[in-house]
């Protein structure tokens, strides 16, 4: 009477797929239209669908339905998963290695194993190749000077944590060197308001949109203003991490106003605050951040 119908991982994948099918419904080209002759287990397997426009389209919709909750709508990275367009493939960048990563996941990380058909996995890889840039060469700046800027003059570490050291208001950066492209990092430093970084999404809200790293100001009834990042919010309460690094847990009835400013708490690092060379140094440090190893 209570048969287990799917392995748990399938259920997760189905749930994600269903959720996103509606939000991000996408043209699916018929899967069986592709003839995928060989299994991809060999280490040197090449993507039989590489560059195939129909496969790229199919891959893009599969991506949005299954991968975008963590890796972002356009594969440029989300609240949990890295940017997959940067050309950096820390777990191997060959067709066969990406195939394996998708199918088996990455143990010890939040990347799960997925149960796609082979043709679907190849279509995903064809899509990812189509949006990937060539990995940028090493950044010209000086890593050590960049590290000093990060913790010193530029004060990045006041809000960002790297390997357990630093602040908490902004995204954690221990793996940012593999998770985000140089272009993305540059944009985030110079114009942080342009695209607010995503926080995590609510697994119980299938159509929900993840919270953003957005400046929120709570105004109390006696006129006090507490500025921070909303960790969560509903019609009745607000869970704010304040600029003072403390939780401020409000009932909305005790507040006269909650202001959503649609901007990042992070200041825009202009040329005056961070000149070209300093930016290169900082990027050299950030791109060197590849995890705890």
């Amino acid at each position: 009477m209570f048969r287990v119908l799917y392995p748990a991982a399938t259920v997760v994948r189905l749930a994600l797929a269903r959720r996103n099918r509606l939000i991000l419904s996408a043209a699916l080209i018929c899967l069986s239209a592709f003839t995928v002759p060989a299994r991809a287990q060999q280490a040197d397997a090449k993507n039989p669908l590489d560059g195939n426009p129909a496969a790229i389209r199919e891959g893009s919709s599969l991506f949005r339905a299954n991968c975008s909750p963590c890796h972002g709508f356009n594969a440029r990275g989300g609240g949990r998963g890295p940017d997959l367009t940067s050309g950096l493939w820390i777990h191997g960048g060959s067709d066969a290695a990406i195939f394996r990563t998708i199918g088996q996941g990455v143990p010890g990380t939040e990347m799960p194993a997925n149960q796609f058909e082979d043709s679907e996995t190849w279509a995903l890889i064809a899509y990812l190749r189509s949006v990937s840039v060539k990995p940028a060469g090493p950044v010209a700046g000086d890593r050590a000077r960049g590290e000093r800027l990060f913790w010193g003059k530029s004060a990045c570490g006041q809000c960002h944590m790297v390997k357990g050291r630093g602040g908490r208001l902004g995204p954690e950066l221990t793996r940012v060197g593999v998770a985000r492209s140089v272009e993305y990092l540059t944009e985030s430093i110079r114009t942080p308001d342009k695209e607010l970084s995503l926080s995590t999404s609510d697994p119980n809200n299938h159509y929900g949109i993840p919270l953003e790293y957005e400046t929120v100001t709570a105004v109390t009834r006696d006129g006090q203003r507490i500025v921070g990042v909303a960790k969560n919010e509903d019609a009745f309460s607000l869970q704010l991490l304040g600029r003072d690094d403390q939780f401020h847990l409000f009932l909305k009835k005790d507040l006269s106003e909650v202001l959503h400013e649609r901007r990042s708490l992070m200041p825009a690092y202009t040329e005056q605050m961070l000149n070209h060379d300093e930016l290169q140094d900082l990027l050299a440090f950030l791109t060197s951040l590849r995890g705890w190893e």
Partner: protein
Amino acid sequence: MKMTAIRLAGILGGLMICAMSVRAQVTYDRILNAAHEPGNWLTYSGDYKSWRYSTLDQINVSNARDLTAQWVFQSASLGQFETTPLVIDGVLYGTGQDNRAFAIDARTGRAIWRYQRSLPDKVQPCCGMVNRGFAALGDRLFMATLDAHVLALDMKTGNVIWDVEAADYRQAYVFTVAPLLVKDKIIVGVAGGEFGVRGFIDAYDTATGKRVWRFYTVPGPGEPGHESWAGDSWKTGGAPAWITGSFDAELNTLYWPTGNPSPSDYGGERGGDNLYSNSMLALDPDTGKLKWYFQYTPHDLHDYDATQIPVLLDAVWQGQPRKLLVHANRNGFLYVLDRVNGQFLSATPFANLTWAKGIGSDGRPVIAPGSEPTAEGTRTCPGALGATNWFSPSYDPQTGLLYVASSEECDIFSGAPQKYHEGHDFMGSIYVPASGEKAWGALRAIDPLTGKKKWEFKYSSPPWGGALSTAGGVVFAGDSEGNLIAFDARTGHDLWHMQLGAAIYSSPITYSLDGRQYVAIPAGGALFAFALPAK
């Protein structure tokens, strides 16, 4: 003699027990008069007019703040728990995700039986392995399954009494709907509008499971309306019918809404109005014959299913008493129709919308230029999830207001031609939330006759829970942040709320037992019941 008397007493006692169990039989008459039996919840929307209103008034504006959890039932699956349970003489009957069903003691929350029909590997619901509930007649419950079967279950045991296949699930035919019992038939409508099915509404004989009629929502060759589909596009035209309709016994008319044409966001190969997608259908429940139709969104390109509950009202319209049908539509307009003949009376926006400049006097939308999806993407409001969706509105005859959970979200729609492949997604598009905009939602109290908004209560994000109104002057509704909220029906002031820990994907019900009024709602994997503290 003495023995006989004792025997007789025994027989009489037995008869009394029998009489009680006879009372537990659901009759068509009881459902027809469900509004006069507020202790129970006998059909999906509470009664055939689909008001989702109860005359129970123990919970009122002054005491709602004292509401307390009475029990929690765990269904054993997580996600979107969409059921509207039925309550019949002390027992609550619900359906869960993954083809589950259950009966529980409505006083204690203790399970009486559980049922799960095994799921084949490739069922294709667009939006979760969900089900919205049972219909009941006699000692049977009727359930429409994810693998497109219709079942009769025994109320006492959950045993299957009959099981019929309505369609082939491998072609992506799916049921998520709560069936509607009309006389001796149950009515169901199919889902699958994201997969290019040919939509239909079916009626089955409750005694045998034999299909009595089928109405295809996409007309075949030679049938009126067929000309509204270019070429062979009708074959994969969609127009599913996955929300429970309403019924007017006096007019002997079933009102059943339909969903989007397929592919939902690309219309290049389905030129024409695409009847009867996004329509209200008035059907003869005995024969399935179409009496009239009204199409809200002809040749839809934005997934604006009309699968919202039709609310039946009798009211004075411009000096004349009329039988009306009120419909808060996913496309953002609140429509009033004459339900005798389908005549269009009015349409008023109840949410921000950009796809149409208005609705003409003939009921057709005046499409805003440049609102069609393009290859590059067009920002259009409401987004694909709609200004509202399948969750129930509620009509309160005391305030004369319609309570509608609404969303404010715009999407970037991009459309592209797509080849149909049986059993696979067929939407012709990608749509994503418009970036840089914060989507939100609200419970809105609207005068259904004028479309004027009386109050709104803002939610942090678009809601997926509907509303229940009660004679105590309290409206109940759930939000996507997981709050069940009690509102003052007149002012929208929030009287009480409870955080249930997961987004709410259902509409509340109410019932009473031992003189106590309960309110029940699912959230996450659990079903919750609330009441005032026992005296």
